[in-house]
């Protein structure tokens, strides 16, 4: 049976061992935390203009499917896009921004890069909002998105530009295209 002295000795030894061991390994733990401090995952891409925030989202639509956390757009019509501006400041504010819709298509499945993404629609906005006020602008476009492409909405103010919304379109991959010389060789 242990006396009080035994328990004190065991406790002190346990504390000292714990402290020394954690102190010995602490630099590794601390450095690992610091190394990742610079990057942050952003849940909703947001354009920030003088205390105001602008975001974009697709209006609810059957054209967008979601499977295992991956959202895809059915080829064809592009659902309405809602651009939401919110004045987080303490005074009335007028700000300007540009929204650009870009539709890119796949070159072929073995190409290095998708085709050059061309702006298919662009609009400048000027909104005046009271403190705490938000406003939603709904954009509808007649543009169509082809299979295996990508639809992107860029928001720009001053020199800031963000890809506010990006979604790929579903579909079957086209076969690798033959180069002109390959075509010539088979003739």
């Amino acid at each position, binding site marked *: 049976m242990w006396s009080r002295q035994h328990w004190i000795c065991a406790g002190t030894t346990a*504390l000292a061992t714990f402290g020394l*061991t954690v102190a010995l390994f602490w630099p590794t733990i601390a450095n690992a935390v610091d190394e990742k401090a610079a990057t942050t995952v*952003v849940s909703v891409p*947001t354009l920030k203009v003088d205390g105001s925030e602008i975001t974009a989202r697709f209006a609810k639509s059957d054209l967008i499917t979601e499977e295992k956390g991956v959202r895809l757009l059915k080829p064809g019509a592009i659902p309405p896009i809602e651009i939401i501006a919110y004045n987080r400041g303490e005074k009335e504010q007028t700000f300007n921004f540009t929204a650009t819709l870009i539709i890119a298509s796949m070159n072929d499945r073995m190409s290095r*890069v998708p085709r050059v993404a061309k702006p298919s629609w662009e609009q400048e906005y000027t909104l005046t909002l009271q403190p705490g006020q938000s406003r939603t602008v709904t954009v509808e476009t007649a543009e169509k998105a082809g299979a295996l492409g990508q639809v992107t909405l860029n928001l720009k103010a001053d020199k800031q530009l963000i890809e506010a919304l990006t979604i790929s379109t579903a579909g079957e991959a086209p076969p690798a295209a033959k180069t002109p010389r390959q075509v010539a060789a088979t003739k």
Partner: protein
Amino acid sequence: MIRRGPILVGVAVGLIAAMGVIGHLQPMRPAKPPSGPMLPDYGGAIRSAVIQYAHGSDFVLPVYQQFLAQQSADVVIYLLCPGQPDLEEFQHGIGSVPCKVHPIFTAHPMTAWSRDRWVALLPEAPNRPYMLLAPQGELQQEIWPQRAGDSHIADDLSRALPRLLTSRRSSLYFDGGDFLADGEWVFATPAVLHRNLQHTVVTRDDLLAALADDLHRKPILMDDAPDHHAGMFMMSAGNHRMLVADPSLGEPLFNSADPAAAAFPSGPDFSAATQRRFDSVALLAGKLGYTVTRIPVVPARDEKMYLTYVNVILDVRAGQPVVYMPTFAGQEKLSAAATAVWQSLGYEVRPIDCSTVWQKGGTLHCLVNIVERAEISLPMQPNGG
């Protein structure tokens, strides 16, 4: 006098408690494995490189054949391919080559563009493995099976070659071709900013910090650069010299009568706006202290197709700086002018006909990703530099 028992029990309890705390904290923030800076394009002799081949990519075989035929027996080429039929197709197309070709089967689809899959980081100490840094994900991998397969290439390599390579996934989105490392700098294309700002990082400064942390070089974001990978419009020639492509030099030499020129869907792009983008890169390099040399290029108006002479592989053979430079059939005047530029910088030019691949958005540099170079110093500096 206290016996040993309580002390041993105390040590055991203390160790168990400490391991519990450390074990709880460590998995939350795994320590990043150590590595050196990004491997530059300009440096010593090539020791090993990675290429990819999959059925449906036969357009790359003539390029591989020409490049591999010029590699000596001490160079190892790691060939990734989905399986045996792809390897046999490759071997049939390439024939016998002097260098060692080490096949690695991946059992998944892929493209042939090895450059964009990862960047090599130098070992943190001699005889340690090189680090392959892969992006968080590939563009459109959710709908593009070949791109989804490409996202596993760095891990495939490190699993197959554990003594030579290890791999790590960055928190950032990029293509390997978005970067060009030279000296203390790493140049990054506008796509890196657009794909990450407000997605993986909050601000531009956060991105710069993350790039410096990942690549161990000072990042330079080229805001106004052409919308393509860096190796399509610039290349370091060593000794603070930078080659930057110039459409105005390409325009008078471009042979629009060549049938291959018809591959440009809406013709070449010699517009003032495009010229400004190339010039902005030259201006930036000049501000950083580089001696800038311009070299002809023909960019496309509608596609990411360039007839470019900076998408090269640099090497050193028997003390002589060598450049494997893309050429394009029917564009002999352009190729001759580009050859003269590289020669003026002290390089022996070894042409690689890239007529079968340029329409796909890349050429030689995009297909061959260098893993190892001999010591990063040249026995003879090109042009006496």
